[in-house]
């Protein structure tokens, strides 16, 4: 609805109400002030609710219904004009707003009537109200009811009081029955509604009985002559104050607006509260709670495009969402859709917000998953690099052993043979050969140490227990092994554990000034825990030397963690946890 239309409608509403107030003060029978106020307030409220509803739901009839109800409510006031024609029209139209109210109640919250039967009920209600008003006007003599000076009833055929009374006795039950039917239908709408529609029906469930009660009371009062209703006070209550109950009609609109606004807030809060990396099922639950729609489904297109699965793992078809259901794509690609109660369709802003929120949350988890995947890739490649390094060292060690070392051994054997031959023959040659043999032996020992430093063959050949034993045997600090598992583990686990103990014992020897050290390796359910402790100076910091830093990196490369506990003066305790199935 354009601004111009809004302005025009608002002006019309104000004019209508002003007209009503002016009409009240034309010379004539005095009118209690409260009657005027309630008349004007209810009319204006309906007209304004109509404009606002029209603006909020441009494609829905609700705005029109509110507006029509407002005008039908105000129209009878023209009867106050001291002329026969407006007097007759005003009185003729007096009860018709009731049919519009019933129409509004049955069309809530979408603006559409739900079935042909209900459309029939609404038509019957309009027809009955107009019809019975027409017929009763034939027999209504204003002179008998209101003070003298009333304008004439142009439709009057028979002015006798008895005919009017008879008519009232017949028409009252029909009116009551129609009111009852409308109320029952509204309650059944509420019962049948699910999800958002049910939520939207709740305010009506309170408002409809109140308005029906007012209608029933007024009908009874008009047709049955009770002393209270005939008193001045009774009249004032019934037709002065009681109509204010009708303000509940526009209040229905206000309530539904607040409901949508609250839901929008709840959706926002739900997304904010959703912990990062939550699975889509959690997102669905959060949105379902925020919208009060337990039937909400969040479905994803299968990777092969063959269909959709919701977060509960059930196949769904967004092309045929089922009766009373509607589909909203979460992302433009249509890879994810929300399937919800179609009552939500009438809150487009809320739907858009929900879809946007879901889209953001999903995008967030997607990015997170991407980062996670990248991280995993990096971790895997780091582990591969370390493993490749280990392999290269293993090969290098083997090459040294099979090549240079064997040649040196062969050389020293030859030197030994030569020395044997030279024995006694040439003392100078003998001593030369002896020193050559000694050099060769030194070279073998040095090469052996070098090869061991590159890769400990004993680790590959006998496993962790033997390799740790070898480390402890060569440690210059008295070291005991308190625990070491006998079995074999995956090569990266063994290599890392060995590296940890080797580096730790090197540090103990270099920096700790320790008297004793202990090594414990334990296999737990999912990991190997390596612990090296000493009684030395402590104060080792992970970032001080590159040794511990490199050690931490090495342990991290297999997904493990390193902890260093080294208070100054209280020794150092180093613990590595290495994942191992």
């Amino acid at each position, binding site marked *: 609805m354009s601004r111009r239309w809004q302005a025009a409608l608002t002006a019309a509403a104000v004019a209508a109400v002003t007209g009503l107030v002016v009409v009240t003060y034309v010379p004539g029978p005095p009118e209690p002030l409260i009657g005027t106020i309630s008349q004007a307030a209810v009319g204006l409220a309906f007209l304004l609710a109509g404009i606002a509803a029209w603006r909020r739901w441009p494609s829905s009839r609700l705005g029109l219904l509110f507006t029509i109800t407002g005008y039908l409510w105000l129209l009878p006031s023209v009867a106050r004009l001291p002329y026969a024609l407006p007097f007759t029209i005003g009185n003729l139209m007096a009860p018709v707003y009731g049919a519009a109210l019933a129409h509004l109640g049955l069309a809530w919250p979408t603006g559409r009537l739900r079935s042909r039967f209900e459309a029939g009920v609404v038509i019957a209600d309009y027809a009955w109200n107009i019809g019975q008003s027409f017929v009763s006007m034939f027999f209504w003599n204003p002179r008998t009811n209101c003070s003298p000076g009333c304008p004439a009833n142009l439709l009057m055929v028979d002015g006798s009081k008895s005919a009017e009374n008879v008519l009232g006795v017949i028409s009252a039950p029909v009116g009551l029955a129609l009111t009852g039917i409308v109320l029952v239908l509204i309650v059944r709408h509420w019962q049948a509604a699910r999800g958002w529609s049910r939520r939207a029906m709740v305010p009506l469930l309170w408002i409809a009985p109140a308005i029906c009660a007012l209608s029933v009371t007024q009908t009874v009062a008009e047709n049955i002559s009770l002393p209270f209703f005939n008193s001045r006070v009774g009249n004032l209550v019934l037709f002065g104050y009681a109509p204010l109950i009708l303000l509940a009609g526009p209040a229905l609109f206000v309530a539904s607006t607040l409901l949508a606004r609250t839901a929008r807030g709840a959706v926002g809060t739900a997304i904010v509260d959703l912990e990062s990396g939550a699975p889509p099922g959690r997102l669905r639950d959060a949105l379902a709670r925020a919208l009060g729609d337990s039937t909400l489904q969040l479905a994803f297109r299968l990777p092969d495009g063959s269909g959709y699965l919701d977060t509960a793992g059930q196949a769904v078809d967004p092309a045929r969402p089922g009766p009373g259901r509607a589909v909203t794509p979460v992302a433009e690609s249509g890879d994810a859709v929300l399937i919800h109660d179609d009552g939500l369709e009438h809150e487009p802003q809320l739907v858009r917000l929900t879809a946007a929120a879901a889209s953001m949350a999903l995008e967030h988890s997607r990015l997170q998953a991407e980062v996670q995947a990248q991280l995993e890739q990096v971790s895997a490649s780091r582990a591969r690099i370390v493993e490749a390094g280990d392999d290269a060292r293993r090969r290098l060690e083997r090459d040294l052993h099979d090549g240079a*070392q064997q040649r040196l*051994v*062969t050389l020293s*054997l030859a030197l030994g*043979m030569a020395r044997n031959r030279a024995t006694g023959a040439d003392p100078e040659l003998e001593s030369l050969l002896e020193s050559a043999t000694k050099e060769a032996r030194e070279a*073998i020992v040095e090469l*052996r140490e070098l090869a061991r430093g590159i890769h400990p*063959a004993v680790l590959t050949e006998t496993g962790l227990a033997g390799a740790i034993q*070898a480390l402890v045997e060569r440690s210059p*600090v008295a070291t005991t092994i308190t625990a070491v598992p006998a079995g074999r583990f995956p090569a990266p686990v063994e290599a890392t554990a060995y590296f940890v103990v080797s580096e730790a014992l090197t540090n103990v020897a270099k920096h700790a000034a320790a008297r004793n050290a202990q090594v414990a390796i334990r296999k737990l359910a999912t990991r190997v825990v390596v612990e090296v402790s000493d009684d030395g100076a402590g104060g080792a910091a992970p970032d001080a030397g590159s040794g511990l830093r490199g050690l931490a990196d090495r342990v991290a490369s297999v997904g493990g963690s390193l902890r260093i506990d080294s208070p100054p003066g209280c020794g150092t305790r180093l613990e590595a946890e290495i994942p191992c199935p």
Partner: protein
Amino acid sequence: MPVTAASAPLRVVIAEDTVLLREGLRRVLGDAGLEVAGTAADAERLLQLTRTLQPDVVLVDIRMPPTQTTEGLQAARQIRQQWPGTAVVVLSQHVETELLFELLADDPRGVGYVLKERVADIAQFTDAIRRVAAGESVIDPEVVSRLVARPRRGSPLETLTERERDVLALMAEGRSNQAIAGQLWMSPKTVETHVGAIFSKLRLTPAAEDHRRVLAVLAFLRH
């Protein structure tokens, strides 16, 4: 363990995958008066030769094809179990004791563990082969001295005298009291006294047989 008659030379099979070293060993042992009955380049061939030739001793490199890890060691253990008449000398590059204990665990009699560089000292090397063939245990002195030299705290080893340490090391190398006496210029009686003192200080049960003694002493040194 059949004691080889002095007249008949010891029959040796050599298993070593490096050709030059294998041939060198063949010549050295031949020159030293041993009979090299056959040579093998891998463990499988060694087992075949042992079966057919029934040598007095096999000399086997720990690392051999195909995996270049511990084939030689496994072959040595198998030979000791299947052909008790054949002694084994394992040539190793490892000063670490893990493989040594694997080798000795079954029965240290007729078993030798010698570091490869030892071949340069031909006299010592052939002596080791002869001792093993005679049913003794031979542990490389380098391996033993590393074990003895290990730093320890609060160990009864610290209470041993210098002399007792020497005796201990020789026991660990597999020497008999007789040999220890010869090497340290002592009377056999003195050696026995030292041995008794060592065992009581280390709180070990005295073992009469040399091979049990070797195991007990090595196990103590290792832990």
